């Protein structure tokens, strides 16, 4: 059990939720969170948006039962949180990066850009975001990204100069990641995708989050959520 520090509504039904406590995690990992409510039985997987010394921040969108319960949370409310889970984005990466996020897929990319900035000092980090409308959180990406490009309503994939990058991290709609993979394969870019699947345990024990890869069934929660693009598409 942990306490909510804040839960700010942003545009387009996005929320920034900070939960107090000391947490350690790799970029691209996720936590399972849940508030006591009759409308939320299972935990909800949420990527790390940011880690601060005194808490962890999630960026989520209100889309259904559980996220509606979360959206109603207030400072001081108790919330249960487990994790970090999942493999996360690879740390032993090299070269210049494009981080591409669409919709809620944007969430893990902020902490990823922060981490990359810290550990890959010599490489450029370009961030590409696809959103329906302008949102309050965008600007903060400028703290770590060497370039930030946001597209509203269209296809962010149309605006990426793929040839510039050695590595791409992408997270968002399947169609988006698929398009990127096509380019990545053509240009021999290392492309890592972060997948979303409905989960129960979050730790790899129940097999409800299985996805099909070139190497057989994999558990998104344990073997992923980050996979090589070429293994998925």
């Amino acid at each position: 059990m942990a306490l909510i520090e804040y839960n700010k509504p942003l545009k387009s039904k996005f929320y920034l939720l900070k939960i107090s406590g000391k947490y350690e995690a790799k970029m691209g990992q996720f936590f399972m969170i849940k508030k006591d409510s009759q409308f939320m039985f299972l935990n909800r997987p949420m990527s790390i948006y940011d880690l601060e010394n005194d808490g962890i921040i999630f960026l989520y969108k209100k889309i259904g039962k559980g996220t509606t319960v979360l959206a109603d949370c207030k400072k001081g409310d108790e919330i249960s949180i487990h994790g970090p889970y999942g493999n996360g984005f690879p740390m032993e990466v090299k070269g210049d990066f494009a981080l591409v996020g669409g919709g809620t897929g944007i969430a893990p990319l902020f902490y990823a850009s922060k981490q990359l900035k810290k550990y890959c000092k010599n490489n450029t980090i370009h961030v590409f975001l696809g959103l329906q409308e302008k949102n309050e959180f965008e600007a903060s990406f400028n703290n770590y990204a060497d370039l930030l490009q946001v597209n509203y309503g269209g296809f962010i994939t149309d605006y990426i100069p793929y040839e510039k990058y050695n590595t791409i991290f992408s997270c968002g709609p399947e169609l988006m990641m698929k398009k990127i993979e096509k380019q990545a394969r053509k240009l021999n870019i290392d492309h890592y995708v972060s997948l979303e699947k409905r989960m129960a345990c979050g730790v790899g024990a129940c097999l409800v989050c299985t996805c099909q890869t070139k190497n057989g069934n994999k558990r998104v929660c344990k073997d992923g959520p980050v996979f090589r693009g070429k293994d998925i598409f």
Partner: protein
Amino acid sequence: MSGLLDINFLEINFKNPIIMASGTFGFGREYAEIYDIEKLGGIVSKGLTLNPRRGNQGIRVWETSSGMMNSVGLENPGIQAFIENELPFMQSLNLAHIINISGTNLEDYVKACHKISRKKVDMIELNISCPNVQENNIPFGIKETTTREVVKEVRKVVKVPLMVKLSPDADDIIRIARICEEEGADAISLINTFKAFAININEKKKIFENTFAGLSGPCIKPIALRMVHEVAKQVKIPIMGIGGIVNYQDVLEFLMAGAQAVQIGTANFINPKVGEIIIKDLENYLISNDISNISEIIGIVD
């Protein structure tokens, strides 16, 4: 060992009556990264079949009021790969391990049980809730005849203790339990998930490609407890109670209703350390109620 919680179930020593249910705990590896699972009484393996299975397509989990539906479809590596890659790990753990076996026809059941029975395993749990592809896809454990058949044939090849796991969808669960006993089952575990249905009203479609899925979690507890209570009174072999247990109070209910031990499934998904917590709470309960061993309360409620 404190002695407070240890129980003897079919001559097997369990540190405590808390056993992790099939399909909810993998083969133990994942939760072993999260806490010291050797504190548990035992674990049941993911359901295994003779041949590997890729499991069901489409959505595999759906949340319900105080429960969940799953349609994993018995994804598993098959008995041979299990024996090679997973069994050694399970055997290396200092706790009782139970191997859960499933099948879609009689032959597969018998072959799988035969294979695993030659290994040193503590116990086999026979899952008879799987649809029988040879008989209209009605699960073996629903009807008396198919139950009798599968238990009888499997018993012939199983040399280790054999526990049969009942389906709550059974026509008459007491009759089915009696048949298992008659055909030589050493113990009974109940219940498996309920056959359930859900619809995506926006898409006007069923949620699960396989149409139905299995309901588990606290929502089913009152029915599971009833079935355990009824069956415990009607058979002489010991019982493991399963269904919706999330805390030590639930465990006490099942034990008082007549179960010798319990299995915990869905609760692991809500709090991964639930096993550890329940064991601690049970210990405290026994101490503060001056009970010297948990077995004293088994079946205490009529």
